[in-house]
């Protein structure tokens, strides 16, 4: 492999590999640097970094069960990471994945538990399940389209608007889960919805493991996002609007329409994350499920350089860290918060790739992500 990469590119495989190495080099070096940095912090406060990382790796990838749990964590991360990445491609920063995800989950749960009773019929699985997922996608898309439209037609910056809408979503979810949507079973004391019907569930892939069909669905979605962005006109327009808004205007692209559409698609993916968590894993929505995924998704999208394949890989990495942290704490009692430190360091080194390039003496290549264009839009 090493030798092949050094030769001039010939076959498609070699070219693909070189492109991958080229793109992945800095992120991988960033990860290594961050892991070393985290290890130093553990060592400074008196822990054993090797034991800690060993525990982390065991917990994340040490057994079939560990792999399964890592993929369970990765599933919402992929969807949410794609959501943020897609918005980035369109030049938009969607901090609102958190709220879109929560609403997507609520909508899917509602279709899952309430719709059959409302209609008075048992829905077959091939209708009920897609309906639940679709509901999550639609509500997420709507929740994403609002800040998109506010930016396009009223000039309100999407960062502040999506943050505000996160708070609104949070308050409304608390209200709904404590009130109208609360499981009325007298034994239930928790702010959560009733369980969704069997017909609205994504099945586990293997017996006795929690990994469910949501994971393959996430991979498929990553492929579809890639296809959309690079093989369709709409994708071209989104990317042009993101990388060069002036050119987009001259090229006759309806900038405002694309902007709203990008945010809607981004919200749709985040809503899908919530819907799949409900239909595939939790079978209900509860306060305390999926807190902070929207923010992790930002780091995942950046680490993955906003490319769908990169998002999938970094989602699995972050999922492994989250999942393995339990075992790390079990074996070494090192607080799980160290994971956040490592994640922040990874993000730091990916964002400021000049630091990494300096440490490892790699030639600079102009490739900067520009997202901020002030608040005015």
């Amino acid at each position, binding site marked *: *492999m*090493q030798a092949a990469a050094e030769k001039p590119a010939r076959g498609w495989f070699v070219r693909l590999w070189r492109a991958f190495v080229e793109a992945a080099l800095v992120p991988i070096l960033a990860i290594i640097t961050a892991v070393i940095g985290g290890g130093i912090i553990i060592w400074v406060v008196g822990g054993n970094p090797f034991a800690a*990382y060993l525990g982390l790796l065991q917990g994340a990838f040490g057994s079939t069960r560990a792999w399964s749990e890592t993929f369970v964590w990765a599933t919402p991360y992929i969807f949410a990471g794609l959501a943020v990445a897609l918005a980035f491609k369109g030049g938009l920063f969607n901090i609102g994945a958190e709220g879109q995800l929560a609403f997507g989950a609520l909508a899917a749960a509602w279709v899952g538990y309430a719709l059959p009773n409302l209609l008075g019929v048992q829905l077959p699985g091939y209708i009920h399940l897609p309906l639940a997922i679709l509901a999550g996608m639609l509500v997420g898309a709507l929740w994403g389209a609002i800040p998109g439209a506010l930016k396009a037609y009223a000039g309100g910056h999407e960062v502040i608007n999506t943050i505000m809408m996160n708070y609104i979503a949070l308050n409304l979810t608390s209200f709904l889960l404590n009130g109208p949507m609360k499981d009325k079973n007298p034994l239930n004391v928790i702010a959560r919805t009733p369980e969704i019907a069997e017909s609205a569930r994504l099945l586990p892939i293997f017996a006795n493991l929690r990994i469910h069909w949501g994971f393959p669905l996430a991979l498929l979605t990553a492929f579809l996002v890639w296809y959309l962005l690079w093989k369709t006109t709409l994708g071209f327009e989104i990317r042009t609007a993101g990388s060069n808004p002036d050119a987009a205007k001259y090229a006759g692209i309806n900038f405002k329409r694309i902007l709203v559409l990008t945010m809607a698609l981004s919200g749709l993916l985040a809503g899908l994350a919530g819907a799949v968590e409900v239909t595939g894993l939790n079978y209900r929505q509860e*306060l305390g499920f999926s807190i902070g995924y929207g923010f992790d998704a930002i780091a995942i999208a950046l680490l993955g350089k906003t490319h769908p394949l990169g998002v999938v890989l970094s989602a699995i990495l972050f999922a492994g860290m*989250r999942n393995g942290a339990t075992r790390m704490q079990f074996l070494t009692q090192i607080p799980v918060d160290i994971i956040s430190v490592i994640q922040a360091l990874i993000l730091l080194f990916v964002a400021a790739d000049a630091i990494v390039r300096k440490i490892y003496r790699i030639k600079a290549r102009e490739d900067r992500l520009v997202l901020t264009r002030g608040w005015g839009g």
Partner: protein
Amino acid sequence: MKKLYAVFAVLLVAALLLPACGASGTPDCSKPETFCVGLVTDVGKIDDKSFNQSAWEGVKQAEKDLGAVVQYIETTDAKDYAKNISTFAEAQYDVIVTVGFGLGEATTAAAQQYPGTKFIGVDQFQAAVTPGVAGLNFPEDQAGFLVGALAAQMSKSGKIGGVFGTDAVPPVWRFGEGYRAGAQYINPNIEIFIVYHSDVGFDKTFSDPEWGAATAKSMIEKGADIVFGGGGKTGNGAVIGAVEAGALGIGVDTDQYYTLPEAQKGLLSSAMKLITPGVFDLVKMAKDGAFPDGNFFGKAAYAPYHDLDSQVPAEVKAKMEEINKALLDGSLATNVSPVKP
């Protein structure tokens, strides 16, 4: 560049090989002579100075008194409850303590999956008996009733306050309503301000001391002279805020004279649920082979007056003991519904 690829390859191989070699040095819980106790927190921290930490203190007492091997895992997301419990179960821990009503279902499910393990569910009411599960419950309404009665007797202004986490959590609701009932038992005309911090997300309702302090002060400005802070750090903030503003504070869960040293000079008492002894007793029963399946009721109590002992009149002390006795023997009922209706 070439060197870099070599480094890559080595790291990759190392990463793949590492998990293969198992960790050593951890005690082997599968041996019958090793008695292991594990604790899984709810979505909260082990050092919360209240709920999770009290249970952990009980487990640590088992380490000291029973020679148990102890360990904890903090849950970061509700969907990991089952995984965290099975991490202990698969390491063949003898007793697993799960803290919080949120883990109830995961605990009963795990008990069915791992019949050899004993489970202690703190604040988990058992509607039906599951073999191997003891739900450790507390009459929070009685603890609240006691401090409510105390507050009503000690208040000079006839106005008292209470700052709580969310009323969606039944034990918190029972503390709050017990407080109200106790105060009204002494003085039906007493004015009570009760505020729940339900306006934020579930993860924040118990961890907002700044809000608690601001709310307590706002009550004191309206004439309240005693504030009961019930609900994690939000409540802690309320107690500290009240004491700082010259009013008296009442703590919750444990004797907060020790956890809130800043409030000692004005801490009247605390509404205690004796989690630590409750957890320890159950662990000991498990060790002795006398584990009770089903519900196990711990005790509620009010904490000593500590620094304020001299300011509490003798007749108030006598009345408090009388109420406590009446609550314990059942001749006095708080009439608080277990869950917010």
